[in-house]
């Protein structure tokens, strides 16, 4: 007896899955969604982590209009629902610029080893997540940057470091250690927030699960989805814990 049959028998016996939906087909369909979920998660982090630094620096800039603009940006991004932002970004090309959304499908693309079909839905979704999360990250960075003692800047200045060298070599590494716990919160929230992409009907895990639940009349996908998200966050916690441990070689 092969493993697929075994799994399906388990699904039939304990989850009431049979006929049109076996446990393996359910897991396969959810797995496809999980890959998209993971892509949103990763792309959002890659985009918003550096963008947050820029926004934080703008927010702390001595140039008043820039600082005010960044303040407004952060306030707006944190003050309106992410779901609304996602939908707005999705529709902007059509309603503001009159561009047909189907024209924005960029076709197949290879991101590293991953082959993806980059459509406007995915693009809009990632833009939305990046812009939103960068605002939260910016405030965390700002808190971290402002917690670094004046003396660190002064020591670097006297030693002749330029201000960008001071920031990259002296300040930022210390900031990262200090903000890691707060960043961990955001990263874990992001794992679950990816489910908001369902409003754009993007085939991430939650969208897939909702469809299956509606068509097959079973609660099982919800339970499995909860487990998947939980596992995903446990993995994130583990990675964050490792980084924290690695940075624990000093305290100040």
């Amino acid at each position: 007896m092969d493993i697929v049959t075994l799994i399906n028998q388990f699904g039939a016996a304990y989850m009431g899955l049979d006929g049109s939906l076996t446990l393996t087909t359910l897991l396969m369909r959810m797995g496809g969604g999980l890959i998209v979920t993971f892509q949103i998660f990763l792309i959002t982090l890659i985009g918003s982590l550096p963008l947050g630094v820029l926004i934080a620096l703008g927010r702390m800039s001595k140039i008043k209009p820039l600082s005010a603009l960044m303040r407004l940006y952060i306030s707006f991004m944190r003050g309106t629902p992410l779901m609304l932002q996602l939908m707005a970004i999705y529709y902007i090309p059509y309603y503001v610029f009159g561009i047909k959304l189907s024209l924005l499908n960029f076709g197949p693309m290879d991101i590293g080893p991953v082959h993806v079909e980059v459509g406007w839905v995915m693009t809009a979704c990632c833009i939305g997540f990046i812009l939103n999360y960068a605002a939260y990250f910016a405030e965390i960075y700002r808190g971290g940057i402002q917690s670094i003692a004046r003396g660190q800047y002064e020591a670097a200045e006297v030693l002749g470091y330029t201000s960008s060298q001071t920031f990259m070599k002296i300040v930022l590494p210390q900031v990262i250690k200090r903000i890691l716990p707060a960043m961990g919160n955001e990263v874990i929230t992001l794992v679950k927030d990816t489910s908001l992409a369902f409003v754009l009907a993007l085939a991430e895990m939650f969208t897939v699960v909702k469809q299956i639940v509606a068509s097959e009349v079973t609660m099982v996908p919800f339970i499995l989805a909860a487990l998947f998200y939980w596992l995903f966050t446990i993995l994130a916690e583990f990675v964050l814990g490792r980084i924290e441990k690695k940075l624990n070689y000093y305290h100040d």
Partner: protein
Amino acid sequence: MAESKTLLDLKHARKSFGDNEVLKDISLTVEEGEVLAIIGPSGGGKSTLLRCCTLLETLDGGTLSYGDCVVASDSGSGAVYGGKDVLQRARTHFGLVFQNFNLFPHYTVMKNLIDAPVTVQKVPKDQAVAKAYQLLEKMGLEGKQDMVPCELSGGQQQRVAIARALMLDPAVLFFDEPTSALDPELTKGVLKVIRDLAEEHMTMVIVTHEMKFARDVADHLIFMDGGVIVEQGPAAEVIDNPQHERTRAFLLSEE
């Protein structure tokens, strides 16, 4: 005797924080090989003077130059500073040792020492490392190169900070109350290192509360109070036989 070389020349320095005038027309010069001690009560302007000399604060008025590098000139209406390149060039003339060390906590002792030479002055790394080992030995810190600052005592940290400043071969080395954050036992080790440097004729400007140390190690001594130089002269003379009433009162209170 060969004519001595003036390394630092500060004239008519003025500095206010709001309505509070912290430096009122201060002039001083530092000659090559000289050890200058600055003493005086807290809030007397010593630290501000040091911070103005090390470009951490800007003067409101007066002139400041390091050798032939003119940092600030007086336009008549206030001090005018040179451009970024001038300030950066001036910074190669001096080093500063802080009261609370300000080592980089995320760097090992070795990295604290070599990072500025390698990053800023583009010294080849192996050359910087060799020099760092020499200085660690001189500071009595052999074998500490792989530790991070938090693993060291305050006295050891301050000696690393002195070594870090020396790595860049400053013409003048400033000390801002280098032992104020240390207990008496740890103070000794740091003072010994500074004494050794004085014996090698390192040019130094030291703001300190250690009167006996100032008397022993300094050639010239300045007593500052209320933003002015109240009294100055050969260190032993000023401390043993102060001429001014305020100096006398201060020295008595410090004993």
